[in-house]
């Protein structure tokens, strides 16, 4: 098993980077997992590279029957995913230039549903409500899959790891995409990065605690705990097994506490006594054991490990997932009309949610479909499980589907290969992707050159001309745009340096600051005054003669008189100092 990334250079100044999983056991096969289009502007300078679009290749867009069925309230089955995409490439899963729109889309949709559709007759509002609920869940599942794949890439191999995966911009993107709160699109960059870091820490803690909870419960019930790891070594799921010999030994004698495990007692299950299914042989300190699989749990789940597959009871995880859907849909479709019942019912469900949530009862929990989708990915890249076992798990996992839009886990490799071929075809031969990239670059250039008022005017004209007119910057502006991208890279870095606390040489690598200041010095005549102010701050805080001299030369390059406007607005935000007792304004501590 090997994860590797491949880069295809595209003729319009971009790289298509694909993370693939290479199966070496048996038949050699390469399964693409995720692809990213990096806008390189056609040069070799990584400083102006920008990731633009991300495709999660293991997911196919829902088919027409799927979309239609998703509109039906209380329809809890899936007709199966479109396993054979028609050769058209997927729209990107992440379009970094349009990240904030999804927030607006969701808010607009919520407003429209509440104020326009809800007052209409039942069948008029319930269909779009069901459709949007299913679609929202589908997106969450896709996001979870995407998050896992990107994490896989990030942790896979230092050599293959692109630089932008650690950039603050990417962390912001992740915070917006993979965070749970709807307000995340409106936060500052630093807040987003802090949120992302916190989110990752919580996720890690959740995985670890659920891992340990399941291990201890398995131990107490005399079962075998078998965590399943990603290639990065992170455990996201776990299998529980029972030894055939133990079933014989403890038959009808040993008590079984199903708390947190949520499966039937193996010590009273006739199926296990005469088990004919999959068995794994292991050697332990106690001797040889023949292990029968009992269940699979997802560990990235709030509070408790969530049951995804019960090898003895197909309906067990499904009914737990159903409990949540039925409650939610009950409120949405049946009780929304009656204010009295509605209030009482909501209060009742709130209390129920609180008690079940607090005690870790596995009913009415958040959806497990995201965790199930992650298991689908894990099955692709895990070489710890035998092929037979993988097939068995995929079959069982397929039965969990409650959302008509749900992905087919068995089809992951097939879909991924087809999607990747279509994407490559489109990237190399088609026009769609090229056009899209050029449009996004154009939009960046318009934003760079024109203010808000003008841009609004261009939009108005475009609207009035029914889309015929689209403002474009002349080709000559491209050089300025390329320069701007480089400048942004250095400006962002210098701002980060200026925002930090303490002597610069102490905190940062002076060579790195030197490089950015050199860029500023060489291009001072083309840079805005804000960059000059950064140089001024660095001059004030530098302590070595070399850095002071360079910052001073930068400053002189901006203003030969040597002084920037003293009374001018403070463009650069100074690092917030600590609010001391007596100050009324609460301020956050600086995070250098």
């Amino acid at each position: 098993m090997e994860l590797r990334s491949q880069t295809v250079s595209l003729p319009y100044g971009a790289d298509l980077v694909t993370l693939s999983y290479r199966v070496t056991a048996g038949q050699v096969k390469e399964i693409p997992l995720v692809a990213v289009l990096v806008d390189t502007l056609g040069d070799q300078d990584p400083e102006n590279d920008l990731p633009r679009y991300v495709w999660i290749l293991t997911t196919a867009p829902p088919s027409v029957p799927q979309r239609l069925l998703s509109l039906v309230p209380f329809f809890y089955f899936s007709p199966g995913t479109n396993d054979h995409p028609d050769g058209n490439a997927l729209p990107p899963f992440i379009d970094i230039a349009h990240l904030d729109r999804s927030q607006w889309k969701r808010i607009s949709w919520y407003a429209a549903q509440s104020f326009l559709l809800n007052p209409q007759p039942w069948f008029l509002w319930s269909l779009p409500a069901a459709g949007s609920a299913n679609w929202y869940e589908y997106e969450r599942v896709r996001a979870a899959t995407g998050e896992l794949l990107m994490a896989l890439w990030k942790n896979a191999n230092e050599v293959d790891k692109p630089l932008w995966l650690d950039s603050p911009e990417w962390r912001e993107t992740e915070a917006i995409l993979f965070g749970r709160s709807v307000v995340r699109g409106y936060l500052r960059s630093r807040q987003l990065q802090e949120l992302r870091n916190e989110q990752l820490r919580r996720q890690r803690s959740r995985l670890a605690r659920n891992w340990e909870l399941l291990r201890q419960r398995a131990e107490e019930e005399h079962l075998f705990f078998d965590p399943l790891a990603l290639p990065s070594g992170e455990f996201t799921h776990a299998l529980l097994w029972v030894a055939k010999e133990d079933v014989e030994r403890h038959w009808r004698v040993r008590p079984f506490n199903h708390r947190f495990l949520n499966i039937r007692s193996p010590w009273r299950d006739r199926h296990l006594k005469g088990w004919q299914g999959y068995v794994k042989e292991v050697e332990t300190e106690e001797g040889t054991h023949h292990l029968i699989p009992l269940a699979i749990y997802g560990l990235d789940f709030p509070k408790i490990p969530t049951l995804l597959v019960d090898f003895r009871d197909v309906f067990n995880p499904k009914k737990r997932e159903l409990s949540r859907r039925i409650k939610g849909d009950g409120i949405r479709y049946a009780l929304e009309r009656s204010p009295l019942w509605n209030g009482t019912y909501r209060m009742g469900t709130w209390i129920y949610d609180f008690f079940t949530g607090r005690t870790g009862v596995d009913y009415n929990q958040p959806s497990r479909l995201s965790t199930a989708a992650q298991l689908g990915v894990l099955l692709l890249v895990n070489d710890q499980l035998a092929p037979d076992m993988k097939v068995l798990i995929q079959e069982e996992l397929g039965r969990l589907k409650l959302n008509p839009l749900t992905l087919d886990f068995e089809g992951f490799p097939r879909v991924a290969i087809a999607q990747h071929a279509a994407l490559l075809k489109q990237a190399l031969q088609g026009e769609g992707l090229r056009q899209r990239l050029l449009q996004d670059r154009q939009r960046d250039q318009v934003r760079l050159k024109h203010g808000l008022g003008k841009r609004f005017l261009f939009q108005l004209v475009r609207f009035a001309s029914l889309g015929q007119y689209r403002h474009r910057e002349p080709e000559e502006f491209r050089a300025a745009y390329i320069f701007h991208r480089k400048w942004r890279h250095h400006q962002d870095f210098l701002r980060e340096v200026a925002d930090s606390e303490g002597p610069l040489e102490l905190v940062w690598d002076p060579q790195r600051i030197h490089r950015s200041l050199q860029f500023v010095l060489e291009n001072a005549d083309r840079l805005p005054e804000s960059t000059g102010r950064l140089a001024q701050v660095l001059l004030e805080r530098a302590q070595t003669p070399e850095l002071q001299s360079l910052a001073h030369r930068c400053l002189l390059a901006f203003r030969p008189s040597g002084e920037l406007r003293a009374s001018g607005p403070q463009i650069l935000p100074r690092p917030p100092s600590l609010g001391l007792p007596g100050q009324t304004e609460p301020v956050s501590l600086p995070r250098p």
Partner: protein
Amino acid sequence: MRRRSGGLLGRRCLFIGCVAVSLAASALAGSQGEAARLPWRVVLLKFDGLPFHLVDDNIDRLDSRTARRWMPWTRHVFYENGVRFPHFFTRGLSISAPAWCILDTGRPPAIRFSVEFDRATGAVEDYLNFATFYWDMLRRQRIYPRPVEVLDELGVPLFSDVFPAERTYSSIQLFQRSLRWMVLANVARRQFFHASPREYLYQAAGGMGFKNAFFEANEREFLYEIEHSGKQYLDFFSAMADKNLHNDNGPGAARHVVEELDQVVGRTFEAIQKSGISDRTILVLVSDHGMNTRSDRFSQGFNLVRLLGLPQGGAHHVLTKRRTLSNYSLKILVRPLATSVVNRSQAGGYLKDKPEYVTAMLDLDGNERASLHLRSSHLNRLHLVLLQLQKKIRTRRSPSSLAEELRVLQNGLEAKVGRQLVELEEELGNLSETLSSLKEARDLTPAQKFQRDRFESYREAYEAYRQALSGLLRARPEEVADGKVSVRQLLPPGIFGPSNGIHELQEYVVDVDMEGRYRTLDYFQFLAGQRVRNTRGGVESKPVDFVATRVPVEQALPALQAAGLGADEDPVWLYASPESQALILAQSFSGETRLRYVPVAQLRQDSSGAISFRRIPFQPGLPLRIWEDPDLGVTGRREEWLGQFHGEEEWRWALYRTRYSLGILGLYEACQRPRTLPGISPALARFFRRRQLHMDPDLQIFAADGWNFDVKDFNPGGNHGGFFQASARATLMIWGGERTGLRRGVSIEKPYDSLSFLPTLVDILRPLDGGSEMMRRLSAVPWAGQSAREVLQAELAQAPP
């Protein structure tokens, strides 16, 4: 009986008034001008559970993208311009309450565990419970946290007590005297009131949590005091490292911890620079213990509470300070301030359905070790006989044989506690006299009033204990059989009786069968023999590494002498398996206590109290695994060196790089009998020493590497409590201004333990002081630890102290 305080409105007014007055006082009292007159200043950064290796491993780390240092300030302040101690160890157990007690008092720990149980009264002392402290303070029923009250009772002063109150700033921590209501008010403000709508959105999206707000508010006030006040002693306490590392062993958590720490160091250093007296300020970064955390494995839990509740574990109802799986429990919402919880056994023993009869008390703090109190096996037998006499348990034994056994057991108990009861009566008399004088006194301070109330409650509880045992000794079989007295009257719940000796623990009575035969359990074998199937990450299947207990020297001496050994003090017995055991012997040589490690096997004590064991040669697999440790630093042949007594310093040099660090010294410290404390009034000394003795556990259980005993939740990140390098190696780094005479960029390679902390600090401060009263008092303290004078420049270090 606690007095009712004034109305709620009155208390609120008083609280608001206190806040206003403290704010005004701090504004008026503090000024830079006042600070400029100070001869010196000491600023302590106390980070609970910060392992040295975490700092040292990351000190040169850079961000892969920006090349920004993770710890620029720590590197600059302590590594380049200060002194660091790479081999600074917690003395004794690596758990918070005793470890901070040593650091804050400079003496051997007067508080020996983070939770202490009183065998006589069943009282629980939960020293880490801040919630009850603040609740009691709000109700005006307490003025200091419990650990400080205990130190006051024992006459042990804090280091900060040397400074006048107006010259001291202590943040919220375990051993604190001042109130920090302002910080709590700021936490609330920080949590609920924000400057901009975006801040509200940030909070709604899951921004700063309560812990961060608490940390910030604390730090903000601390920095203000450094910069603007004339305080001479300032400390800042943070539990951030401990909390994060317990929870998460990932690289993200480690980076978060070291970056947060570094920012505190940086801001403190800058505040010192602005204070105007940076040239004579000492900045210290210190932690109480380390943390056994590794990114390649999760720490795995082994549930001792469940084990002791099982029929094979003795079917105990177990008392702990927190509920098992409290994060998954609703009961914690009903009793959020509870300091103890009874974990009821589901097994059907003789105490089934009688959860009030707790027979085991378990302190799991740190989680890498546990201390276990078991009800006296003798009392268990008495309890079973009484129940049989009253036919509550039906066996085939005749009433006459039961009556006879009751008399035998009463005689046995009389031999064990008879003298104690007489002494206790006398001690309670002294306590009553002290109470009378306190009641008559008119000008008592609030602290003295609370102390009086506590003394009263001790007196009542111990009087009840004395009467209960006396009653039990006087009970007549026929009265019991007739049902004239109930079993509950004769043996009330909560009384654990005298400590169990080795014989009792090897043949601990847990139940009786139909024939009237006792079912017994050897707890050494039982605990150390546990095996677990499901382990990962190279963690071995044996969760209990070894069990340790103290052996009374008078009982051990005949066997020791027969084996050609000797000891002056109680030996410590370490049990890993029947064939793998060791004794740590202590003997006095010209006033110096020296220790020796002796491998033994099959140690047993018979019912007469005679101890027997077999000496075995040094071999791999013995407790603490010294013999096979490649880092054992001894000269000459190991067997020869280990076969002799050695002083503390010799052991420190030999052990400090080994896997179990200073385990031998630590076990000796942790298992010693409580010392007589010189600061306590002679009339009460014996009573308080008795109380401390009652808090001594029967057994100390140490987890194997990678295991923990946490039950209230899960601590997969890491744990501490034992002697593994990562757990016991704490952090100590010192920086001083130009006039302090501290060396720059020096790593002290000599191993020290936490007893050396305060003497070193005093030695650094002495040359700066012009002979103040404060320094005279500090210099007069007979510090137990050795000062690390090599932190000073040569001319100061060589000057006579």
